Structures are given as C-alpha cells and as structure tokens.
C-alpha cells in the first residue's frame, strides 16, 4: 500500500515536472548538440551544413587573435566588474545599516537600477558620456579639469572603464540590497559581545560581519561573475566593440561572425570554445564558494 503510494506520487511528480524539463532541454541541451554539429561543418545562416570540415573551424578559432583577446577580455572584465560591485555593494549595505531616516526611500532608489532595461541604461550613459554636450564633459569642463571634451567611448583606454561604470551602476545596488537583507539576519549577540570586548568598528567588521556574510558574498560573487561573462547589451549600444576591437568581448565577437558575416559554422566553434572558457573559469569561483560555505556550515 505505502510503496504504491510513493510510486504513484513519483509518477505524478515526473508528470508535473515534464514541461519544465522539456523547456530546459530545448533552451540548454538541444543547442549544445546543434552547436557541435554546426561547428564541424561549413554553414551559413541561409544554408546550414553545406559540407563537413572536421576540426578546421576550431583550428582557425585557436589562431584567431581577435577571438583570443576577446576571451581574455571577457574573463578579466567579469572579474574586475564583479569585485568592484561586491566591494561597493557591501560598503553601501553597511551605509544603509547606519542610516536612521530615509532608509526605505534609499532602498527604493537602489531597486531602480536593477530593473532598468540595459539598452535604455546604455542610451542614458551614451548621453552622459557624449563628447559634445554630455553631462560628464560639461561637469569636468565646468570644474576646469579638462580643456577640450573627451570622447570617452572612442578612446581605447577609457572605453572599457566607461562600460564597467554603467555595469556597476546597474548591479552594485543588487549586491547592496541582498547584502543589507543578509545583515539583518546576522545574530545580534555576536556584535554586542564584540562591542563589550572593546572591538572597534573595523575589528567588528573584519572579525564578525565579514566571516558571517562570507557564504552570501561567495554566492553573490558567483552569480554576478556568471552574469558579467554574458556582457553584450552595453557593448552593442555603447561602443559596438570598438574603438577597433578594444571592447570586443566573447558574446559580441560571436554575434558579429554569426549574424553580420553569416559564418555559422565558424561561429558555432567559437561559441563552444567560449562556453568552455567561461565554464572553466566559473569552476574555481564556484569551488571557492563551496569551500567558504563548508567552513561556515
């Protein structure tokens, strides 16, 4: 009796889960299979699978300087931007905890960047950074810091930082809000005990807050790192990968090969290598998270 009940429940369970599993397979597993097949072929957008070329596409990809640079840039960008967002986000969360009045209003303000469509945000930053009449140039000129307007997005040195600032604007508040929520859950007694023992603000942060928050911060780092490797929208609107290939990251380069040059076979090989590199760099980050959480648990 009991066993059949358990079995029946499991059968219903698979029935309920079915559509969701199919959706996940269509969006995640099926593309992998198609990509592998396409990567071994000569394919265009109009005529897929025109002939088999073996591993030629991969050989070409490994020798492609723009692609190799794009991979390195993607990983470095993700690491830098994620670290910035975590450090600033934690700082803002601590600030929120100190604020006695208007905290709710501040949290509302922090919620807005997270919801802003990235393309609209990119358009806003384009206008802020514009050389003629942009907000930043006008402010810097008003303060007498620069004489002639700076073309931030056209400069090989400033284009990436400009994208990173827009990224920080969008996601630092997300880290701040979640960290703030995490801070509310920390046991108060620990901090009271530390204060009585004479621990200062920095000591309390370093020896109490940070270790207690570590599991949450490790999760946030992993999540934001994964999201940062997907960078596309900001690049598309702000720099279109330029100047030259300066801001051409993995996703953007693949987009150009596939949907502007229509070389689908080659793009498939690039995508597989890109996915591998992102996966391999995510692994240590996710491992770090497990270690932190085990230490805690």
């Amino acid at each position, binding site marked *: 009796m009991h066993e059949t009940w358990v079995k029946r*429940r*499991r059968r*219903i*369970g*698979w029935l*309920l*889960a079915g*559509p*969701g*599993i199919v*959706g*996940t397979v*269509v*969006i*995640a597993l*099926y*593309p992998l299979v198609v*990509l592998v097949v*396409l990567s071994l072929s000569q394919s265009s957008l109009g005529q*897929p699978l025109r002939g088999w070329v073996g591993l030629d596409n991969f050989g070409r990809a490994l020798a492609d300087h723009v692609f190799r640079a794009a991979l390195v840039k993607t990983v470095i960008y993700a690491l830098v931007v994620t670290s910035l967002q975590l450090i600033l986000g934690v700082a803002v969360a601590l*600030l929120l905890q100190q604020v006695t009045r*208007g905290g709710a209003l*501040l949290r509302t*303000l*922090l*919620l*807005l960047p*997270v*919801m*802003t*469509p*990235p*393309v*609209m*945000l990119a*358009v*806003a*930053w*384009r206008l*802020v950074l514009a050389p003629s*009449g942009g*907000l930043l140039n*006008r402010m810097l000129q008003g303060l007498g810091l620069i004489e002639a307007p700076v073309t931030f997005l056209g400069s090989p040195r400033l284009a990436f930082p400009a994208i990173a600032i827009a990224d920080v604007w969008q996601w630092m508040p997300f880290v701040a*809000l*979640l960290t703030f*929520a995490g801070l509310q859950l920390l046991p108060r007694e620990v901090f009271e005990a530390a204060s009585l023992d004479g621990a200062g603000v920095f000591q309390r942060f370093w020896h109490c807050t940070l270790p207690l928050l570590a599991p949450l911060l490790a*999760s946030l780092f992993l999540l934001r790192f*994964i999201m940062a*490797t*997907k960078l*596309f*929208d900001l690049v598309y*609107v702000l720099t279109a990968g330029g100047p030259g290939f300066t801001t051409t990251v*993995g*996703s953007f380069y693949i*987009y150009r090969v596939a949907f502007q040059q229509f070389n689908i076979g080659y793009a498939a090989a690039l*995508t597989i290598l*890109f*996915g591998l590199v*992102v996966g391999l760099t995510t692994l240590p980050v996710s491992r770090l998270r497990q270690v932190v959480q085990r230490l805690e648990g």
Partner: protein
Amino acid sequence: MEQRSIILVERSLIMRTRQGQLGRRIGLLVAVLLLVVFLAAPIAYLGILSVTSQGQMLSGQLWPENPYWDNWPIAFRTVPLVQFLRNSIVAAVLSAIMTLALSFPLAYAVVRLRIGGRFLPSLVLASYAAPPIVAAIPLFFVLRALGLIDQLLGLVLVYGMANVPVAFYLLDNFLMRLPEEIEEAAWLDGAGTIRTMVTIVLPLMAPGVIATGIICGILAYNEFLFALLFTYSPASQTLPVGLSLYQGERLVQYGQMAVASLVGILPVYLLGGLLQRWLIGGLTGGIK
C-alpha cells in the same frame, strides 16, 4: 568593584560616541548624498534632456530655461514607440505566465515529491550559467523551421523557457519555507497530489509566485540579444531593439533619444514602485 569598572567603561563609551557623533553624521550624510547623485544622475539627465532642444543643449544650458516639450511628440512621430512598447509588454506578460506554468509544477515536484534527486535541480540551475549567445544560433534555426522568426510568439516561447531556471530558483526557496504539515493534512483528507498543489500550496505561496512572475516579466521586458536576432520588423520588435536600431539613425537628436529611453524605463519603474515590497521579498528570497 567590578560593578564600578563596568560603569566606568560604559561612561567612556558614551563619551566617545558623543564626541564622534557629529563627525560621523556629516560623513554619513556626504556618503548618502554621493550615492543618491550617482544613482539618480543618468535617469535625471534623461529627464532634463527630454525637455531640452538641441540648440539649448549645444549652447551649454544644463537646465533649460524654457522647457522644450516638442521632443516628446517628435520622438513618438519619428519612431513607432507605442508599437514597440506594446510588443515589449505583451512579450513580458505572456512569457512570465508561461515561465510560471512551467516552473511552479517543476519546483513542486522536485521539492515536495522529491523527484530527480540532486541531479535535476543542478541541471536546471546550470543551464542558467551558459551565455545566451550559446543558445542563439540553434534557437534561430528552430524558430525559422517553425515559421516563428519575426513573430512575437517566437519571443514569448523563448523567454518563457529561458527564465525557467530563475523562476525555479526563487520558487524553490519559497516552497522550502512553507511548512509541509498543511499539505500532509490535505493528503490524509484524501485530496490528490495535484489538487493539493493547486488549491492549497498555490494560494499559500501567492506572494512568492507573484514576485517570481514580476521578476521574470521584467527580465523578459529588458531582454535584448534574442529580440535583436529573432525579430526584424516593428510589428514584432520590442522597445530595446527598436531603440538600439533607431539611435543615431533617426533619433539623431539627444532630446528625442532621451524621450524614447524614458518611455521604456518608466513602465518598469512604475511597476517597481507599486510592487516594491513584493519585489524585494522576491529578490532577497534566496537568503536564509
């Protein structure tokens, strides 16, 4: 003796806090102001530009003396903003409903009926780690084979499936916090599994389900890459795609670009303002 030393320590603590109070308050205020300026600047600048004429902007007026409202009608006339907005909202709402329909039973089956062990949840969550560009080319061929390229329905289906991992993650957390005893009581009363899920668990979890739906809707509303690749005409293009194509082409004037972006941003802000409590609940649901 001991009592006294404690009182002394306390007194010195109070003295120290009083001395540092003013300085700390000023420092706090400055930090908060900097944060507010940083957060508000881009959007506030859009607002100002939307009522600034090109001439006023080039002459260096940061705050136009006579607001130039003509940017608004001109932007709406130059670009099919209403059509884009309608497409964005339809795609967001329908795909969010689809995501919930796929992921709520999935989450319930995994958490309560304990199917799939540890493998299934990790598979669903891992599929979120892949960059969307990975799915872009294969999905393009599927949609073309189904005749769904340049169709809003194609986008709805893609978003509906693509957001399942996010919804699963959020719903999983909400479900785990719900005590199981209530469902057990329903089973003992003879209610079937599916009936229990729909009539007992779903109403209890309504806040979490709605928060999840809103988050997935916003994700779909904001999505750009798939919309860029899978739609070609204004009949099916969403606002981000429309805006990205027209900026620098037809919307050469900053004021009109600002209007177009504001039109895209304001609906989400309105929604966020109205449903803030639920949204924060959804976003912070993962913290235990």
